[in-house]
């Protein structure tokens, strides 16, 4: 096929650059694994690539995907999903059907009729030439070759070569006849030749090469001649004259994506001049209509201007220029993620206006299908709207397919945690030319899972030696029923104990029911209902000694209860949660006995149990019901791996007066954290992150009944660093202030911080005044510095109350 029409100058000749999408751009498999999410900041993804195994069998020739390589390069770095699933991204593997016989039609010039048929059939189209130049050479490499058997240093025409010999081509020269120079490999035409130096070719191969060059439309005239070398090889010189058209000062880009191809009327060679004229006129009219019907491109003004500048600079429109324009336009598309966009043709040449025809890749259909483990299409359990609501609008029909939208879809669907494998696969629509069908293939996870993990622990027996009886079987039993009714509802239960024989010692359980799409799956409002039963056991930081106080007997706070809450997600990070909590709180001493009062070690070594009351009721067991609301505003984002933005959290617990001693209270806390970017930096992978100043403030207060386990404590890695949990005090109202300066250093950062915590004089308003009983100051500052080593923070913090410093290793982030 064709073919640049070296048509008469008076014809407006659309040249058809056949858009055969021969290459199968097999994008890499991307498997993303991540560690369990800790804090949102410390998420890490590992990417590995492997090409799909099906590629070689379908395309025996190694492909050189120059045009698509930008996508290949930037695809992997974007997808960062959080579960260990494999995501395959396929681009269409079929030819766009605008190829073929029809392809040549647009030109309609006298000069190319014969070439048209030949080109169309073999698929050796314009693009093919670009993508697969090394094909033939590779096939014949490492083969025996024959000497040319001619005297050295003579010039031989191609047709003088022997048809039976295999010639070794030592050099290839490209001679631009118009300019009279030999062009180097940097020239854009050079890549069109599939011959490679040191390749071994037969005469037929060389002839075919010449033929394809001649028919590609870029050249008015191409010749090939050999020059014999003394060693029996030949040097090939390809001399050519580039096609040129009259200069243009306008440029237009149109999307011909879903336009039906115009079938050219066969031109009868016996046509009279008049008929011919009529024919061309018709064709001209057709083309005009075609342009009018075509939709405008996405191509933005700056690129238009750039192209116009190119046209202006060049003067005459040459094949090289068109090639450059094509490259520029395609580069923009591919940089923007429109992976299916192709420049298919330049039309209207020899007029003032160059028309660039682009198939942008309009989505005609969105198909969601489920696969079983073997890859067979099955009817899925998941309801389609659940998947659909996760898809960006840009994947719906009538939008242009964008690979970023595809990735977004992948991430969103993956965050549902319902599928083990997700593929978003754009494929050409066979029915509509230039259309793309977006296929989303999903493999569902097992709906019901149960898991038992066991562990044996050896506890010291009598005399300190472990005995057989001191082997304790422990472990966790988990069951999960996911995706109930296909609406992503789930029930999850787990029981953990360190001793199955005596599970009453420490039995942790959790039972949770999650009901997403509370407002209906079609409603864009995203509210999720969670109902759970839980228990927990924590060491109370209220009963902790201040500096110099040896050992305060610990108090364990056991909570067991149920809660129901509704979470409304505004954005990925910002949300509003409100619900009801009912719980029973039991306070216990070291030996698990219920204790209504804190203990104190006397200097004499004795222990008294007359410390501050642990519960509101004074019995050691409290029951209460309260409303809880939490609103989180988080607009932080990562700039080169460093978090920047702000996070505000307000939480309020409102007692209802239901429970032991009718607890009625309002416990509220406000946290404000801001991450100031101190320097503008260029964003991009591998670029250094900016230095960041973190300012943090936390106010907590309570009005009404305040049992000690709900008192706010000061000190600890998430309160005032450099102190132990609760070492500064436990109070009714607290204020914490912190500042941290982070300076990036070699892929990580060092930081310096200063923090202060203050009870605002409200320690005495906690019953029993635990702050004073355990000799704490009620306020304290600290400062220090540290370095982040992967997930671990190593920091040296000086506690201002005692003036001593210590080195700490902590996991996760403070803010």
């Amino acid at each position, binding site marked *: 096929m064709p073919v640049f029409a070296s048509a008469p100058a008076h014809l407006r000749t659309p040249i058809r650059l056949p858009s055969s999408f021969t290459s199968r751009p097999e994008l890499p498999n991307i498997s993303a694994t991540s560690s369990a999410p800790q804090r949102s900041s410390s998420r890490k993804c590992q990417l590995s690539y492997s090409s799909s195994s099906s590629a070689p069998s379908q395309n025996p020739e190694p492909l050189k995907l120059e045009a698509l390589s930008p996508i290949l390069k930037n695809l992997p770095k974007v997808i960062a999903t959080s579960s260990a699933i494999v995501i395959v991204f396929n681009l269409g593997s079929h030819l766009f059907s605008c190829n073929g016989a029809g392809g040549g039609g647009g030109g309609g010039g006298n000069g190319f009729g014969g070439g048209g048929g030949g080109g169309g059939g073999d698929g050796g189209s314009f693009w093919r030439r670009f993508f697969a130049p090394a094909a033939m050479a590779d096939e014949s490499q490492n083969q025996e070759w024959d000497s040319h058997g001619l005297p050295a240093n003579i010039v031989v025409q191609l047709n003088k070569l022997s048809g039976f010999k295999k010639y070794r081509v030592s050099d290839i020269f490209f001679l631009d006849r118009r300019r009279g120079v030999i062009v180097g490999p940097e020239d854009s035409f050079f890549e069109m030749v599939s011959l490679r130096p040191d390749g071994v070719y037969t005469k037929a191969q060389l002839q075919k090469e010449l033929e394809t060059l001649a028919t590609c439309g870029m050249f008015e005239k191409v010749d090939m001649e050999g020059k014999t070398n003394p060693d029996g090889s030949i040097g090939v010189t390809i001399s050519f004259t580039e096609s040129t058209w009259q200069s243009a000062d306008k440029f237009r880009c149109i999307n011909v994506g*879903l336009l039906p191809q115009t079938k050219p009327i066969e031109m009868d060679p016996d046509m009279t001049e008049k008929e011919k004229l009529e024919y061309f006129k018709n064709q001209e009219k057709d083309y005009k209509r075609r342009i009018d019907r075509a*939709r*405008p491109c*996405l191509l933005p003004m700056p690129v238009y201007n750039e192209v116009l500048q190119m046209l202006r600079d060049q003067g005459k429109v040459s094949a090289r220029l068109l090639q450059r324009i094509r490259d520029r336009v395609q580069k923009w598309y591919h940089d*923007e*993620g*429109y992976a299916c966009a192709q420049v298919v043709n330049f039309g209207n040449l020899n007029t003032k206006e160059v028309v660039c025809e682009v198939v942008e890749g*309009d989505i*005609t259909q969105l198909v969601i299908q489920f696969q079983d483990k073997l890859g067979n299409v099955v009817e899925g359990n998941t309801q389609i709207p659940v998947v659909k609501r996760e898809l*960006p609008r*840009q994947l719906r029909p*009538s*939008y*242009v397919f*964008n690979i*970023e*939208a595809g990735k977004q879809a992948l991430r969103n669907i993956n965050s549902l945690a319902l599928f083990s494998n997700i593929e978003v696969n754009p494929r050409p629509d066979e029915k*509509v030319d230039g*259309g793309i069908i977006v296929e989303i293939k999903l493999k569902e996870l097992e709906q019901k899972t149960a898991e038992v993990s066991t562990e044996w622990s050896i506890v010291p027996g009598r005399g300190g030696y472990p005995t057989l009886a001191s082997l304790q079987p422990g472990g966790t039993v988990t069951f999960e029923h996911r995706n109930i009714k296909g609406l992503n509802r789930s029930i999850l239960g787990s029981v953990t104990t360190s001793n199955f024989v005596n599970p009453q010692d420490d039995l942790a359980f959790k039972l949770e029911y999650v009901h997403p799409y509370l407002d209906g799956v079609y409603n864009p409002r995203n509210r999720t209902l969670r109902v759970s039963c839980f228990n927990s056991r924590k060491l109370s930081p209220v009963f902790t000694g201040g500096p110099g106080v040896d050992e305060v007997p610990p108090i364990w706070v056991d909570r067991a209860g149920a809660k129901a809450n509704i979470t409304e997600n*505004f*954005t990925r990070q*910002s949300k*509003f949660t409100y619900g009801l909590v009912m719980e029973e709180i039991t306070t216990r001493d070291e030996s698990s006995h219920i204790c209504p009062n804190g203990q*104190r070690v*006397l*200097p*004499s070594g*004795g222990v*008294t*149990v*007359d*410390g501050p009351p642990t519960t*509101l009721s004074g019995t050691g067991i409290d029951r209460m019901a309260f409303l809880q*609301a939490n*609103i989180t*505003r988080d*607009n932080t984002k990562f700039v080169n791996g460093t978090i920047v933005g702000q996070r*505000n959290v*307000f939480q*309020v617990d*409102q007692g209802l007066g239901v429970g032991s001693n009718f607890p*009625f*209270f*309002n416990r*509220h806390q*406000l946290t404000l954290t801001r991450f100031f970017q101190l320097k503008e930096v260029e964003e991009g992978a591998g670029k250094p992150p900016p230095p960041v100043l973190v300012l943090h403030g936390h106010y907590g207060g309570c*009005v*009404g*009944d*305040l049992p000690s386990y709900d008192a706010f404590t000061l000190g600890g890695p998430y309160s005032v660093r450099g102190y132990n949990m609760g070492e500064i005090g436990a109070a*009714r109202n607290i204020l914490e202030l912190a500042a941290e300066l982070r300076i990036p250093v070699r892929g990580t950062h060092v930081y310096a911080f200063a923090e202060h915590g203050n009870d605002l004089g409200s320690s*005495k*308003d*906690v*019953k029993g005044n635990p702050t004073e009983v355990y000799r704490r100051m009620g306020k304290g500052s600290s400062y220090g510095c540290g370095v982040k080593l992967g997930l671990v923070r190593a920091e040296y913090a000086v506690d201002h109350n005692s003036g001593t410093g210590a080195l700490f290793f902590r996991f996760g982030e403070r803010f």
Partner: protein
Amino acid sequence: MASQVIREWSGINTFAPATQTKLFELLGKLKIENVNTLTILVMGKGGVGKSSTVNSLIGERAVSISPFQSEGTRPVMVSRSRAGFTLNVIDTPGLIEGGYINDMALNNIKSFLLNKTIDVLLYVDRLDSYRVDNLDREVVKAITDSLGKAIWNRALVVLTHAQLSPPDGLPYDEFFSKRSEALIRALRLGAGLKKHDMQIEGDARLPQLYDAPSEAMLTPWGLFPSSQTEIHYFVIFYLILSQGSAIPVVLVENSGRCNKNENEEKILPTGTPWISHLVQIITEVALNGSKSIVVDKKLIEGPNPNDRGKILIPIFLAFQYFFAIKPIEWAIRGDIAQESRPSWETRDTSMVSRRF
């Protein structure tokens, strides 16, 4: 605690006749003022002689003393009546246990005192301990926290082991003066009594009181016996509180080897018969016009911080809803509006209308 049974105050008979006369006189005075019951609370650190003082006051071994170990943690009330007058003395366990305030003892005392009326508090300490430290302050603070500041209007400081020879040859008066001064200062600090409330500073001039005894001394209560010579050596130390009352300091010697005067009355080194003096001061304090302390739940527990502002909680909640939750919600909406979207998301919205 079990000794709620009111017995006849027979111990009064064991006193020397002169003392008895004095006591009856004072009791009569009380009866005139319509005071038929007098409840005395005795508090102090451990081992200072609280129980002994109680026994000396009653005139019999009403409560057991435990000189070498910490006593039980239960308070004891001894009630004696004589001629229609009832005297209740509440002996309490020492408030200090191993260098700390014994909260359990304090709690026991509090619950024991519940619904009782205290007319007089005897804060007992030793004269012969030379130092006043934090612990004293803690004890005073504990008492104040439990019974309120007003208790000090009805308190007197009792210094036991009065029969001593001061170290370094200090004159007895001076030693006593210094000791009580220091103690009063600790008391003032511990009780959180404000300085500007004091009309007379802690360093009240003891010598002046000696020198100009009669008028000044008599006016506040005006019921001293005529024997001014006796008063002369009475050592009364004032701390004027905001209400204008004072905390008198009284010396006590419980030891059996206590010197006696010619009337067989136990006397201090200053020559004062101390039992009658003590009762006299008690009487004066009881009649000093301030109110007796009625111990109720509220008093014991102090102002409950858990109750403060409880009524305002609905207002707080409304405030939080409108001034915390709502603004954050608006800010989130602002974030959503301002969110920088990738270019592909914004680009071809205008072309959705096209059809195939």
